[in-house]
């Protein structure tokens, strides 16, 4: 649901398409925050309308620009191919031709990242860091999958994304820390693979949790991975 007038009017953006250009930049921006480490190799698998029309819409440039940290109104989006080469990463676009269950404008990022331990996602081409993102119109986007985990991340507010071993008391421990920073929670969602398995908590906040708070959350026994993401820039 649209929370703001400015989801409809705006963003100020580089053309030509809000879903294919601005949406692509924003998906890249989200992935950049999640991947945390610099990209070495990026493969983009494009689905449906993204697959058919990505070149003419600058979707390719937008995805790269987003991964490089440019915002939707940056004049340099046009030069994204060159900027990616300068940043020292290789890229490949693979349109997927065939039936699939994804929404009209979907991209799967498969990234090889710097500074990732062997065996971890992103360490090499056979085990890439994988994220599935969707552009749903007007520049609005969401991510539905990070590696093996189903998520729902829109980047419309500061978000704390936590992976942990399912056990009693996790919500209480996490929210106690957030409360101690006097930050309000807008929404909280938990999912899990199975009882006692890996669980995922997505918390939308009214303000970004300071680094010190994130450190406290990381200390909670059973916490395996934390991601503290700011909302997407205007």
């Amino acid at each position, binding site marked *: *649901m*649209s929370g703001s007038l400015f989801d*409809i009017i705006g963003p100020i953006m580089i*053309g030509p*398409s*809000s879903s294919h250009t601005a949406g692509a930049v924003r998906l890249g921006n989200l992935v950049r925050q999640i991947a945390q480490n610099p990209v070495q190799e990026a493969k983009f698998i494009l689905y449906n*309308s993204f697959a058919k029309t990505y070149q*003419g819409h600058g979707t390719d440039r937008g995805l790269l620009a987003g991964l490089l940290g440019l915002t939707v109104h940056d004049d340099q989006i046009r030069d994204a191919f060159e900027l990616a080469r300068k940043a020292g990463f290789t890229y490949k676009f693979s349109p997927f031709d065939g039936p699939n269950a994804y929404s*009209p404008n979907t991209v799967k990022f498969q990234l090889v990242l710097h500074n990732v331990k062997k065996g971890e996602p992103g360490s090499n081409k056979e085990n890439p860091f994988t994220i599935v993102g969707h552009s749903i119109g007007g520049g609005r986007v969401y991510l539905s999958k990070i590696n093996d985990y189903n998520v729902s991340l829109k980047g419309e507010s500061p978000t704390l994304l936590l992976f942990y071993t399912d056990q009693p008391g996790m919500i209480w421990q996490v929210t106690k820390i957030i409360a101690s920073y006097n930050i309000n929670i807008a929404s909280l969602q938990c999912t899990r693979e199975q009882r006692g398995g890996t669980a995922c908590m997505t918390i939308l906040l009214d303000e970004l949790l300071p680094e010190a708070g994130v450190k406290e959350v990381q200390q909670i026994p059973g916490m395996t991975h934390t991601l503290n993401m700011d909302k997407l820039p205007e």
Partner: protein
Amino acid sequence: MKPFDSFDALLAHCEKENCTISQAAFAVEKAQSGREQSEIEANLDALMAQMRQTIESGIASDEKSMSGLSGGDAKKIMAFLNMDQCFLPPVTMRMIAYGLATLEENSRMKKIVACPTAGGSGSVPALLIALEHEHKTNPDKSKFGLATAGIIGQIVAQRMHLSGAAAGCQAEVGVASGMAAAAAVETLGGAPQQVLEAAAISMQNLMGLVCDPVAGLVEVPCVVRNGISGVQAGVAATMAMAGVNSFIPLDEVVDAMAEVGRMMNPRLKESAEGGLAQTPTAVEFTNKFFK
């Protein structure tokens, strides 16, 4: 205060509080974002300023898009404005030129304001800014038109994705024309009911419009459609202010549009597999372009 989930609820609120549609939009935005009225107004002013800038550079430019399919038509309209053959009034000519200019800048990968999308970004600025230039509406008040356009789009967006890929061009240019018609009525001091009638009339006229871009580019027919959609919105706004009734309420128009979007063949939803995109001329161009 939570966002309105229907136009009925929006109108009931306006009647109860004796307020305009844009005042209702501000009330929701303040509650949702926690921001002050002045901040929201400044944000809207900045977007209006970018819209004016895009139009100003667009009507002066001969530059073609990267594909060469578009560029320079806005300038032609501005030149034709002074010709003997020109029978449309200046305000209409500017609506055409400004809509074209915005989309041409978009195709050049220049800066535009998505409204609600890039492909539909021409209508709202074309109408609001043509009114500033030829009808002497106060540029400081255009933000209230823009807020009105915004809340119309917000409510529509709860029922359908605003993208050609999800529901065809009706979801982009169609919704934009409804937003623009509503914005014009608000700016000209129409009643809340008339604002909604204007949007309903304009959206009825573009119901079912398919998204069939040549070579998948936001150029043909997007540019000319944006040259016309602002004018169409002006016509719808005029009809509503004169007292013409849309018969079908806006909520139902939107639900019908969403339903038509679901029924629409995927080949007519931005994939460039049908409509104008598959004409011999388009296919020939596409083959050359992607060679």
